[in-house]
C-alpha cells in the first residue's frame, strides 16, 4: 500500500479540522479563519493531485482499485469495518471537489467581506468541504452515509446562514426535510443491503457487497413484484440520491436554496453536493447493473431504466420551468436541476463514464455561472431580479466575458466543454436499446437550455440599463447590498474576478479530455487503455451535427424574442408571456409543484397533527382520566364498604359477644347460694330422669 492510500483520510480530515478550529475562533478573527480554511483546502488539493498521479501510475485493470479497511467497533463477536478507497472515480472527484472548493473559498472572501458572520461562514464551508471529501473517498456505505448526513447538515446551515431572514430559515428547513425523506429511503436500502450481504464495505478483497459473490447472492433472490433484491436496494438508494440531487419528485428545495449566499449556491448547489447523488449512483453502479447471468451484459436492468426515465423527466421539467423565471439565481437553479437530470439519464443509458464526464464539466461551468451571478448581484448591490438589471455589459466587462463562456459551455455550443459531455449523453441515449423517447426529451431539453440562457443573457447584460429609481421591497435584499448605497453598478474586485477567469478557462478547455476522438476520460474511468482512433468520432459526427443545430436554433429563438428590440420597460410582460400567457404563468410557478405539495402532504400533515392532538387530548387523556376516576370511585367504594360493612359488622359482632358474655357472667355472680340453687335444680332433674327411666 502506498503512502498516499494509507493517508488518504487526511484529505477530508484537514478541512473538518480547520472547520472545528474556526468554530472555536471569535467573530473578529476573520483573516485567521479565511486563511486557515483556504490553507487546508489547498493542502487537500495537493494531496488529491498526488492521489490522481498515483492512480495514473497504477495502470489499468482491476489493480487500479486500492482500498484500506480498518475495524471500527465490535458488537457481539463481529467487527464493524470502515475504510476508504482510491480508484479513478475517487481521484477525479477529489480533484474536482478540492479545486472548485478552493476557488469558491477565494471568491467568497470578497463576496462575504462585508458580512458580520464571516468566520462562521468559513467554518461551515470548511466543514462542508471535509464532509464532501469524506463521501468521495468512503469505501463503506456506512461511512458514506455518515458523511452524506454531515453534508446535508452543512447545506442546511449554509442555506439558512442569514437565519434572521425568515425566507432563508424556511428554505433551509425545507431543504433539510426534503433531503431527509430521500435519506430515509437510502438508510432503508443500506439496512436491507447489510442484512442481505452482511457487510457494508464496497470492496473488501472479494467479500465486499459490490463484489461478485455478494452480487450473485443478491440477484438470485426475488422480492415482491418479481424484482430482484439488488434492484430493490438499488432503487431505495436511488431515492436517497434523487433527494440529494434534486430529481423530479424531491427537487422543490433546490430553487428555494438560492436564499443562501451565492458562493454557497455555487459550491453546493452547482458543483459538489448535488453531484454527490450522481456520484453515489456511479459508486454503486455494479449493484445497479447487477443482473442474473442469463441476461446479456448490456441489457439495462430495471433500476437503470428507472434512473433513465427519472433523469429524462427531470431534465425536461427543469428546462421548461427555467424558461419562465425572473430571478437570476432561480434560473440557474432550475438549469442545474435539468443538467442533473441529464447526468442521471447519462448514467442510466451510457454508464458511469458518460454520467461522470458531464458531472465534471457541469461542475466547472455551473460554478462559473453562479459566481458570475454572484458578482453581478454584488455589483448591483443585492439586486436579484433580472428585470431590474440590463446593460451591465458596459459596467462589468470581465464578468460579462466569463459569464458568456459559461453560458455557451452550458448550452453545449460546439467545442465548448458542455458540448462534448452533453453529446456523449445524447449519443448514448440515441443508442439506448429500449426506447428512443429519452433521446427526444434530451434533445428538446438542450434546445430549451440554449433558449433560456440567451434570454437571461439579454435581460442581464444586453439592452438598456433600466434600473428603477428606488428598488422596491428591501426586506428580502441581502443586508450586504443595503449598505452598498445606490451608486452605479461596478466591476467586482480582483479576488472575485480571478476565480471567474480560471473557471472560464476550464469551462472552455475541459471538454477536450473526453472527445470521441480521444476518449481519455472514459477509458480512465473504465480502467482501459485509451486509444486514439477516428472510428467513434466519425460514428458520432451526425449526432454532433444534430445537437449543434439544436443549440443554434435555441440561440436564434432567444435572440428573436429578446435580442432584437431592447427591453424598455421592466414592468412590461415578458416576451414569451405575450405569446403564451397561460403556459408562461404555469411554467413560472414551476407547474405549481410546491402548491401541490402544500395542498397534499402538508395539509395531510396538519390533519394528522390535529388528529393526533385530538386523539391525545380526548382518547388517551380521556382514558387516563376515566381510569383515574375509576380508581377513585373504586377507592371510595372500598372505603365505604370498609367503614360500613366491615367495621360496622365487626363492631356489631363484638357488641353481641360482649353482651352475651355479660349475660353469661350473671350466671357466675359469685353468690354461692346461686350456685347451690342450680345444683339443687340439677339434682331434681337427675332424680326425675332416674325415676323416669326406672319406671319405664
Amino acid at each position, binding site marked *: 500500500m502506498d503512502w498516499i492510500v494509507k493517508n488518504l483520510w487526511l484529505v477530508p480530515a484537514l478541512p473538518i479540522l480547520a472547520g472545528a478550529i474556526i468554530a472555536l475562533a471569535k467573530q473578529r478573527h476573520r483573516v485567521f479563519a479565511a486563511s486557515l480554511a483556504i490553507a487546508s483546502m489547498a493542502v487537500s488539493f495537493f494531496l488529491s493531485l498526488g492521489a490522481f498521479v498515483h492512480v495514473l501510475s497504477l495502470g489499468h485493470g482491476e489493480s487500479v482499485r486500492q482500498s484500506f479497511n480498518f475495524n471500527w467497533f465490535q458488537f457481539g463477536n463481529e467487527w464493524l469495518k470502515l475504510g476508504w478507497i482510491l480508484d479513478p472515480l475517487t481521484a477525479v472527484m477529489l480533484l474536482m471537489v478540492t479545486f472548485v472548493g478552493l476557488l469558491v473559498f477565494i471568491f467568497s472572501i470578497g463576496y462575504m467581506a462585508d458580512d458580520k458572520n464571516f468566520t462562521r461562514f468559513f467554518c461551515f464551508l470548511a466543514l462542508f468541504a471535509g464532509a464532501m471529501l469524506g463521501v468521495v473517498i468512503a469505501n463503506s456505505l456506512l461511512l458514506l452515509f455518515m458523511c452524506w448526513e454531515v453534508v446535508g447538515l452543512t447545506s442546511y446551515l449554509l442555506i439558512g446562514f442569514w437565519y434572521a431572514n425568515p425566507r432563508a430559515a424556511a428554505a433551509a428547513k425545507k431543504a433539510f426535510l426534503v433531503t431527509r425523506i430521500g435519506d430515509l429511503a437510502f438508510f432503508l436500502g443500506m439496512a436491507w443491503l447489510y442484512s442481505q450481504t452482511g457487510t457494508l464495505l464496497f470492496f473488501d478483497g472479494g467479500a465486499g457487497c459490490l463484489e461478485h459473490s455478494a452480487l450473485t447472492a443478491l440477484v438470485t433472490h426475488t422480492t415482491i413484484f418479481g424484482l430482484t433484491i439488488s434492484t430493490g436496494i438499488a432503487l431505495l438508494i436511488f431515492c436517497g440520491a434523487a433527494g440529494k440531487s434534486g430529481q423530479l419528485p424531491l427537487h422543490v428545495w433546490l430553487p428555494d436554496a438560492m436564499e443562501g449566499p451565492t458562493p454557497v449556491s455555487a459550491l453546493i448547489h452547482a458543483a459538489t453536493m448535488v453531484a454527490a447523488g450522481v456520484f453515489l449512483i456511479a459508486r454503486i453502479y455494479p449493484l445497479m447493473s447487477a443482473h442474473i447471468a442469463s441476461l446479456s451484459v448490456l441489457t439495462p436492468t430495471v433500476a437503470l431504466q428507472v434512473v433513465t426515465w427519472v433523469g429524462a423527466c427531470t431534465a425536461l421539467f427543469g428546462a421548461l420551468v427555467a424558461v419562465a423565471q425572473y430571478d437570476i439565481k432561480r434560473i440557474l437553479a432550475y438549469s442545474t436541476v435539468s443538467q442533473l437530470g441529464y447526468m442521471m439519464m447519462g448514467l442510466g443509458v451510457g454508464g458511469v463514464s458518460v454520467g461522470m464526464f458531464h458531472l465534471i464539466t457541469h461542475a466547472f461551468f455551473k460554478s462559473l455561472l453562479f459566481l458570475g451571478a454572484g458578482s453581478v448581484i454584488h455589483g448591483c448591490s443585492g439586486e436579484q431580479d433580472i428585470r431590474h438589471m440590463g446593460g451591465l455589459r458596459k459596467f462589468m466587462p470581465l464578468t460579462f466575458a466569463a459569464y458568456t463562456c459559461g453560458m455557451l459551455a452550458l448550452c453545449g455550443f460546439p467545442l465548448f466543454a458542455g458540448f462534448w459531455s452533453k453529446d456523449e449523453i445524447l449519443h448514448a441515449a440515441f443508442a439506448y436499446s429500449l426506447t428512443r423517447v429519452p433521446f427526444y426529451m434530451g434533445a428538446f431539453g438542450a434546445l430549451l437550455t440554449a433558449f433560456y440562457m440567451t434570454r437571461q443573457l439579454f435581460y442581464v447584460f444586453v439592452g438598456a440599463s433600466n434600473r428603477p429609481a428606488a428598488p422596491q421591497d428591501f426586506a428580502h435584499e441581502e443586508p450586504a447590498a443595503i449598505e452598498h448605497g445606490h451608486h452605479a453598478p461596478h466591476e467586482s474586485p480582483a479576488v472575485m474576478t480571478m476565480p471567474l477567469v480560471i473557471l472560464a478557462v476550464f469551462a472552455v478547455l475541459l471538454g477536450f479530455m473526453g472527445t470521441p476522438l480521444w476518449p481519455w476520460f472514459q477509458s480512465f474511468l473504465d480502467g482501459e487503455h485509451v486509444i486514439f482512433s477516428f472510428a467513434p468520432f466519425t460514428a458520432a459526427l451526425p449526432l454532433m451535427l444534430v445537437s449543434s443545430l439544436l443549440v443554434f436554433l435555441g440561440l436564434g429563438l432567444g435572440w428573436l424574442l429578446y435580442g432584437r428590440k431592447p427591453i424598455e420597460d421592466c414592468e412590461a410582460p415578458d416576451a414569451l408571456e405575450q405569446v403564451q400567457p397561460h403556459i408562461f404563468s404555469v411554467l413560472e410557478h414551476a407547474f405549481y409543484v410546491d402548491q401541490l405539495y402544500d395542498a397534499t402532504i402538508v395539509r395531510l400533515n396538519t390533519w394528522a397533527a390535529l388528529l393526533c392532538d385530538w386523539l391525545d387530548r380526548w382518547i388517551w387523556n380521556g382514558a387516563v382520566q376515566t381510569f383515574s376516576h375509576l380508581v377513585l370511585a373504586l377507592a371510595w367504594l372500598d372505603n365505604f364498604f370498609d367503614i360500613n360493612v366491615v367495621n360496622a359488622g365487626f363492631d356489631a359482632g363484638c357488641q353481641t359477644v360482649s353482651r352475651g358474655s355479660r349475660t353469661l357472667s350473671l350466671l357466675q355472680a359469685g353468690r354461692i347460694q346461686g350456685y347451690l340453687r342450680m345444683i339443687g335444680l340439677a339434682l331434681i332433674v337427675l*332424680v326425675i330422669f332416674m325415676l323416669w327411666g326406672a319406671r319405664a
Partner: protein
Amino acid sequence: MTLFFLIAAALTIVGTAAAMSLRNPIHCILSLTLGLVGLAVLYLQLGAQFVGFTQVLVYVGAVAILAVFAIMMTRSAGSPQQPAFSRSWLSGSAVAVVVFAVLAWAISSALPSTKIVPPQPAVSVNQIGDALMHKFALPLEIIGLLLTAALIGAVIVAMPERRETP
C-alpha cells in the same frame, strides 16, 4: 310407726327447722343440737347404739361448740342488723321444697311398701371393732390421716398471720 319414732322424728324436725329459721345464730346452734340429739335417738331406735353415741359425742360435743366458737369469734353473736335471710330466699326455699317433693315422690313410688319388718339386728361394739380392724382397716387408716390433715389445716387456716403486731 311406733309412737317413740314419731316423738323422735318430731323432735328432729322441729330442732332442724328452728335451726334453719331462727334469727339469732346462737339459738340456731342450740336448736340444731336439739335436732341432732333427736337424730341420735333415731339411730338408737334403729339399733345402731355406737353410731348414736358417736353422733352425740362428735356433733353435740365438738361441732356445736366449734360453731358456737366460730360465731363468737366472728362477732355475729348479737342479733344481726341485716335481715337473716339472703335476698333471694324465696327461690332458695322454693328449690328446697321442690327437691323434697321430688324425693318424696321418688321414695313413695320406687320402693315396695313391704310390711314385713326384719328382726332387730343385735350389734355389739366388738363386732364393729372387728369390722373396723379387718374389713375396713384401710378406710380407718385413711380417716386417721384425713383427720390429722384436717386438724393441721384448720389450725393453719385459722391462725393469725405471724406479722400481726401485738
